[in-house]
């Protein structure tokens, strides 16, 4: 598959659909693990050398490299979950991710996907707010073992984060 709309043959269409479905499935499982508080599973959605970066659209537009979260390995992601479980202090809360349809592209055998998201945050008090909106800009490794993120860049539409960001997006 090359480019976005290669529909020249039945086999290329099928390949494309397979990729799209695999990525939709990856996204759905990813969001479900976070929303169901299965945070220990979260690093497993990444390759061992996977990169996870949360930033803002403003930082991207200005070419600023800083991350709100900036991890360059699955080990760093596991450390973050360990810290959330054992060290960091925050009020009980959970998320509900609502994801858009991924727009998948393929270049030189590498899959990229852009997926809109909205995340509601539900506090233990019942207070519910739209906590974050933005776009996942992902590079995805797809092989016999399934789909994993080689890179997930979470680009927040807003520069403003309410109170704290503990659970990953």
């Amino acid at each position, binding site marked *: 598959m090359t480019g976005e709309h290669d529909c020249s043959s039945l086999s290329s269409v099928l390949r494309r659909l397979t990729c799209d479905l695999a990525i939709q499935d990856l996204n759905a499982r990813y969001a479900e693990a976070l929303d169901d508080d299965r945070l220990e599973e979260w690093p497993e959605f990444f390759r061992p050398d996977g990169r996870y970066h*949360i*930033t*803002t659209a403003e*930082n991207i537009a*200005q070419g*600023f*490299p*800083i*991350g*709100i*979260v*900036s*991890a*360059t*390995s699955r*080990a*760093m992601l*596991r*450390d*973050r979950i*360990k*810290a959330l479980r*054992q*060290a*960091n*202090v*925050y*009020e009980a809360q959970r998320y509900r991710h609502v994801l858009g349809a991924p727009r998948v592209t393929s270049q030189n055998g590498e899959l990229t996907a852009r997926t809109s998201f909205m995340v509601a945050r539900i506090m233990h008090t019942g207070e519910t707010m739209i906590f974050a909106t933005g776009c996942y800009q992902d590079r995805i490794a797809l092989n016999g073992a399934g789909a994993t993120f080689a890179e997930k860049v979470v680009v927040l539409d807003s*520069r*403003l*984060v*309410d*109170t*704290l*960001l*503990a659970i990953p997006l």
Partner: protein
Amino acid sequence: MNVHTNVRQWPDEGLTRVPYWIYSDQDLYAQEQERIFRGDTWNFLCLEAELPRANTFRTSNVGDMSVVVTRDANGVVHAFENRCAHRGALLCLVPHGERKEFACVYHNWTYDLAGNLTGVAFRRGIAGKGGMPPDATPEVHAPRKLRVEVLAGLVFGTLGADTPPLEAYLGPDITRGVRRVMRAPVRLLGGYSQALPSNWKLYMENTKDSYHASLLHMFFTTFRLNRLSQKGGLVVGENGAGHISYSMAADVAGKEYEQAKMRSAQDGYALEAPELLQSVDEFGDGVGLQILAVFPGFVLQQIRNSLAVRRIIPQGLDRTELVWTCFGFTTDDDALNALRLRQANLIGPAGFISMEDGAATGFVQRGSRGAPRELSVVEMGGRGTSSEESRISEAAVRGFWKSYRAHMRM
């Protein structure tokens, strides 16, 4: 009326007691804006690097008042109220950019980069009809200009006529602390904001509270980034306006936390990716952490190689925006730059060692809501506001209230 006045009496115990009405009184909020932020204080506006060239600007705040900070064609930095002389509309609607003049979108009145009113649309009318009377002087109502001082790449502004020069306001110790961090030309690394569910004073107290740092922030303690048993100290400026809390990077700590069975001591908790804590002694003095705060709303942070300025924007009694801007220096090599970006995981709304601050100040706001007449106890490290070697002290918090009461005439 009498009751109201009585409620606002500062407790007889002085600086060791803080009344909870101080965080929940609507009238007081308005008074603080006038007497503190728009009064005789220096407000941090931005990094000079945020005005990289002639004819650049960025918006900022003095308390909840919006201001425009500019660098004019000659390189001079100005700051003025973001308010049109005509009807009071915002003059500048974007956070930063490049411009030779500002034109109010409402009626196209124009201003130069120093904030002078330079043009009134159709001032003389058209063909002798309409327009302003010949003797009108709209210039009188032009946006107020701030006195600006730039210290080591940090831009401060004040509206107060009697504010002492910046270095006198900070005092020699705090000035030295600023210069220590701002050792080279700044390279911006980006930023973000955090909405704190609390009164602005609770956040500033939090930054001045060296006692809480290693007790609330378990990540800090667990990895021995900052334990109160580590060598360090607390420097409080003479007028209480500024403070520095610092600790040495080297761990000479004993087992005090473990012996006291504190929640924040969990030895054996190892990082799988310990490179997170890799750092270099870029300042050459062994100081691993320096938090410097200036009344009313500025924080300069050095946590290992993670450098940032933070400024607060009060947004009502129980909401404060905290604006973070992270930076390095133009002299940084790739390795140091990489360390700064990695250590950014420690700070900000998702920071391993700072995420709790946003929540904790909110806990006080909510916890004290029903107790306006009760008092909080601020007696760690005695009753004074002087510098000391121990950080098991609330001397800088008392310093904050010393400044606060002086400005509020309380």
